[in-house]
């Protein structure tokens, strides 16, 4: 009894502390002052933040308290829901077995057995994803209802024993009605077992909440639940372990408390004496051993097999260049399918094509091809290249490159199906293809540098092109293996014979894998690791930071209110303070509001700063139209998700309620393309050095719908279209094109279908055994890397 009193007292103290803490702390506000000293490194515990802060500089202690309230709710109310339903079913089944004809018993048992055969966490996750609870109450209901079958069999078993016992027989003889017998006398008899079962259920509920949060099926960001905190701490486990240990330890402590309460109240306890508290000592030591590893960066051990192992965060979505549009697909495809040209400030650089010779009016071009073979062994000929281009053009709006070739002679007849081939593509000989246009097309060189036109052997079959690497195998979600194509038309200098792209590698493990030799080169690492590398540069590892020609921010769906109003979009772009949003997040993301990155178009005048008056005006506009709720889609566990939470905080200041929907990258792409989201994160990497690329490929094509356009903002503007067409008439590169492009950029910024927040750079690290090419751009040309002789 003393233990019950003590445990109850402990629970009371916990509740009081929780209630006090809840009123005094805010789990959502960030302390940006902590981000100042060094980006990416996490400040440890302090007086103001006794458990430190998370990646967004939110107080871990405050989040822990609020998460505790949610976990307690899920544990107690969820278990209560499950117990109420399960006890009712169990007692009815037992009653039916003993007193009735037993059909209800059989029915209930068959149903329960059927449901119990399905893994609880899987069902709970599916329910969590489909119902998408927004509050802890919703999550409680989901977990409670899904668990309702669990207590049925134990309760039935105990009830069967009790119903056959003398007490129930006696009260029945005294005239107790069946409902009274079940609800009063049987309940009293079963109380110890029910309490014990309740504590076990509550413990499992608390753990299930943590598991669901870890899987990303619980409450979404920025909710402060322990499961969510564990999920968000994944990127920091090895550098800031307190972010994991705090919520996981709290989950453990609450589960233990609930369990002890149940054990103390149960006669079935295994050990009725005082628990050996010293057992907690090794557990604490184990947790203390979870300290960050020493910040020494070691070069990876050289591997004798000669395979270049690189990582990619997401898997390849599309192996067909005309329709591939995500960064991983474009990068891997660039190895399998080479392009006709590269573009440099001095003009075209030969890749698969040797030259492109226009006539004076830019309506006729002779494309001379290199000699070599496709991956399937066929000769790299003009006829096969023509067939490849026609396959791409047959996709119409599904590939952005089709819009750039609108003036190709005979294209419309080909698209209508009136002609089996494009009349404007003429095979002169095995290695020369002539392009005929109805109107001057001075930018054909840049179009031919686009990866979407890279020659392919066949459509939608096994990947087959004329790139420096040949496809060998792919295990979805694991790795893609490529081997060097020795008869590729374009000779490449590297001696990398095989390439393995390990997909789905989480950022926090990238650097660790490099130092263990599992990767030959690290990139896309967690921000804390990037900071570590930047600080330790020049030691045994070689590191290089390079401009990706990549911008990121958010799109505003112009179909959805309030973003159908230009003033609101403009006000939002003014109100979002880039410096503040990006402050301390990732050293590789540099605040910028320009659509065309500096790496591509260095400008003499920096971006104009926003005045206080403009910001006040924007605040007034946004406050006046504050919508009920908007959904903001982002790829989960990414810089974009962190940015989304900061945007959410910033917009909360003007009364906007934003719901963040964190999805896998693949699901994010699909959702963005479907037009269902009001807003979402968006990024653009210029895979050709053409300043018009984003405008012509992502903002000019018609709205996505069933096409593969990336006009996620559903942006339409006749003035923009005319302006773009004018720019596309200029030869590239030329100063006239630069002036026209800058003016076009201003027009888009003014219309604000996109709000650009940052320019992205990439950091790559490898051991000394790898010789890098002199310059790096996106997509990285892995074929030009080399192993050093001393391997």
């Amino acid at each position, binding site marked *: 009894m003393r233990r019950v009193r003590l445990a109850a007292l402990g629970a009371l103290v916990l509740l009081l502390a929780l209630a006090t803490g809840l009123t005094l702390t805010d789990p959502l506000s960030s302390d940006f002052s902590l981000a100042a000293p060094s980006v990416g490194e996490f400040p440890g515990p302090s007086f103001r933040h006794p458990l430190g802060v998370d990646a967004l500089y939110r107080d871990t202690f405050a989040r822990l308290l609020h998460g505790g309230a949610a976990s307690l709710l899920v544990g107690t109310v969820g278990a209560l829901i499950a117990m109420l339903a399960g006890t009712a079913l169990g007692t009815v089944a037992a009653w039916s077995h003993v007193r009735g004809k037993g059909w209800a018993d059989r029915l209930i048992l068959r149903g329960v057995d*059927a449901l119990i055969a399905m893994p609880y966490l*899987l069902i709970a996750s*599916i329910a969590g994803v489909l119902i998408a609870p927004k509050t802890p109450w919703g999550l409680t209901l989901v977990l409670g209802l899904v668990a309702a079958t669990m207590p049925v069999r134990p309760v039935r078993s105990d009830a069967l024993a009790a119903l056959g016992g003398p007490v129930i027989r006696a009260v029945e003889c005294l005239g107790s009605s069946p409902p009274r017998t079940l609800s009063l006398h049987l309940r009293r008899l079963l109380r110890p077992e029910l309490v014990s079962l309740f504590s076990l259920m509550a413990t499992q509920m608390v753990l299930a909440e943590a598991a669901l949060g870890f899987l990303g099926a619980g409450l979404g960001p920025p909710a402060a639940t322990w499961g969510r905190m564990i999920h968000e701490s994944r990127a920091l486990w090895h550098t800031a372990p307190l972010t994991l240990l705090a919520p996981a330890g709290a989950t453990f402590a609450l589960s*233990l408390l609930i369990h002890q309460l149940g054990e103390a109240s149960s006669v079935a306890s295994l*050990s009725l004496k005082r628990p050996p508290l010293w057992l907690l000592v090794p*557990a604490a030591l184990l947790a203390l051993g979870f300290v960050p590893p020493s910040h020494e960066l070691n070069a990876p051990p050289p591997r004798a097999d000669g395979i270049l192992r690189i990582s990619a965060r997401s898997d390849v979505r599309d192996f067909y260049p005309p329709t591939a549009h995500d960064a991983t697909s474009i990068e891997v495809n660039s190895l399998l399918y080479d392009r006709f040209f590269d573009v440099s400030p001095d003009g075209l650089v030969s890749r698969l094509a040797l030259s492109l010779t226009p006539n004076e009016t830019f309506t006729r071009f002779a494309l001379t091809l290199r000699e070599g073979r496709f991956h399937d062994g066929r000769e790299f000929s003009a006829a096969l290249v023509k067939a490849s281009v026609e396959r791409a053009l047959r996709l119409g709006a599904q590939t952005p490159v089709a819009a750039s070739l609108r003036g190709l002679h005979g294209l419309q007849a080909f698209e209508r199906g009136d002609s089996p081939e494009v009349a404007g593509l003429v095979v002169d000989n095995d290695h020369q293809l002539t392009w005929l246009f109805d109107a001057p097309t001075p930018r054909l060189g840049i179009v031919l540098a686009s990866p979407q036109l890279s020659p392919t052997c066949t459509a939608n079959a096994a990947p087959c092109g004329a790139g420096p690497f040949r496809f060998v195998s792919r295990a979805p979600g694991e790795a893609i293996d490529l081997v060097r194509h020795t008869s590729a038309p374009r000779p490449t200098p590297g001696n990398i014979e095989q390439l393995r792209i390990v997909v789905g590698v989480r950022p926090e493990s990238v650097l660790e894998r490099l130092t263990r030799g599992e990767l030959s080169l690290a990139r896309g690492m967690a921000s804390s690791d990037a900071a570590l590398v930047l600080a330790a540069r020049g030691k045994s590892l070689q590191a290089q930071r390079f401009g990706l020609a990549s911008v990121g921010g958010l799109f505003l769906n112009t179909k959805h209110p309030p973003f159908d109003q230009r003033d609101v979009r403009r006000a939002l772009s003014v109100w979002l303070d880039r410096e503040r949003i990006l402050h301390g997040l990732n050293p590789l993301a540099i605040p910028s509001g320009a659509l065309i990155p500096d790496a591509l178009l260095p400008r003499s005048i920096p971006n104009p700063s926003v005045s206080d008056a403009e910001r006040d005006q924007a605040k007034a506009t946004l406050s006046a139209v504050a919508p009920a709720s908007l959904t903001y889609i982002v790829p989960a566990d990414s810089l974009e998700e962190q940015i989304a939470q900061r945007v959410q905080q910033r917009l909360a200041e003007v009364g906007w309620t934003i719901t963040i929907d964190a*999805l*896998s990258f693949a699901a994010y792409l*699909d*959702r963005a393309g479907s037009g269902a989201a009001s807003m979402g994160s968006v990024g653009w990497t210029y895979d050709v050095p053409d300043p018009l690329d984003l405008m012509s490929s992502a903002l000019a094509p018609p709205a996505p719908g069933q096409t593969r356009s990336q006009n996620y903002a559903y942006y339409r503007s006749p003035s923009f279209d005319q302006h773009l067409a004018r720019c596309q008439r200029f030869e590239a590169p030329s100063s006239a094109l630069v002036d026209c492009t800058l003016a076009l950029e201003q027009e888009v910024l003014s219309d604000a279908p996109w709000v650009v927040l940052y320019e992205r750079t990439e950091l790559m690290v490898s051991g000394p055994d790898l010789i890098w090419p002199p310059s790096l751009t996106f997509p990285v040309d892995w074929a030009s890397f080399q192993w050093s002789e001393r391997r």
Partner: protein
Amino acid sequence: MKAFAALLSGVVTILVATALGTALLRALPGDPAELLAGPRASIEQREAVRSSHHLGEPLHLEIAMRLRGALHGAGAGPSIDHRDCYTFLSGKIHSNLGRSPFDPRPVSTAIAQALPVTLRIGAAAWLLQVLLGIGGALLAARVHKTRRFVAYGFTLILCVPGLLIGALLQHALAVRLNLLPLDGTEANAWVLPVLTLGVAGSVLYFRSAFTALQRAHRQPSRVQLAAMGASLGLRFRRVDLPAVGRAVFEFGLVDVAAVASGALITETLFRQPGMGSLASTAISNRDAAMLFGVLLASAAFVVCITHLGDAIRNTMFRGASR
């Protein structure tokens, strides 16, 4: 009669899983065909999915057709598209669970490739759970001084989130000591998930084995054997072992679904390409087709194992009691 009840229960489980998947698909806002084919599928692709999944048919017909697609013979009629089928028994039996918009493989093929990984991890973890559970129970039952220590040790394990056990093991054995790979598919990458799942799931085996041992110690036959001067080994073989074996076996049958639940966490944590990872990816992709397939396959698998176990128990323990 028992076999019939077991068969009926299995059929009910599969029906419930199918009905649940179908009902959830229908309950969601929007077009189920769009959900299955992905929002950017063309009208033709969407119509193909509608036709192949029998969407728009009455609920009972849709469920029946789904079940038929999930398991049918090579000679099944033209209503089933055999291109997406995974085949067993030299092509005589087919399974078609449709296609996912997020995975290049048909759902049946993805599941068939993932299942062996989960089976390997699950079986090894189950063995570890049983060994740890029985070992702990024997220690607690035999050596009284250790009872409290062992019981509370297991209680602590019960209350620790499984993923924390995994994270600690990963940090200690992979990051710090560099004994094992962090995750992935390398030769011994399965050890960490097995350890995690094995330790986390051992508690309930300990409890059932310990309770069985306590009961066995009070059995008249054991007391009689002790009075007759039978050795400890003989008493253990004659009374304790069958009692523990039966208890662990009974519990193991119920625990198959729990091991599958645990696989969801451990495979995700350690990037093992099993059913758990497949489900976890499908959850983050909001991939209804794959989730439905994994749910159905898990339920079918659990039912098969449970009934196989039932049959073994009926044979083995009936003989033992004689």
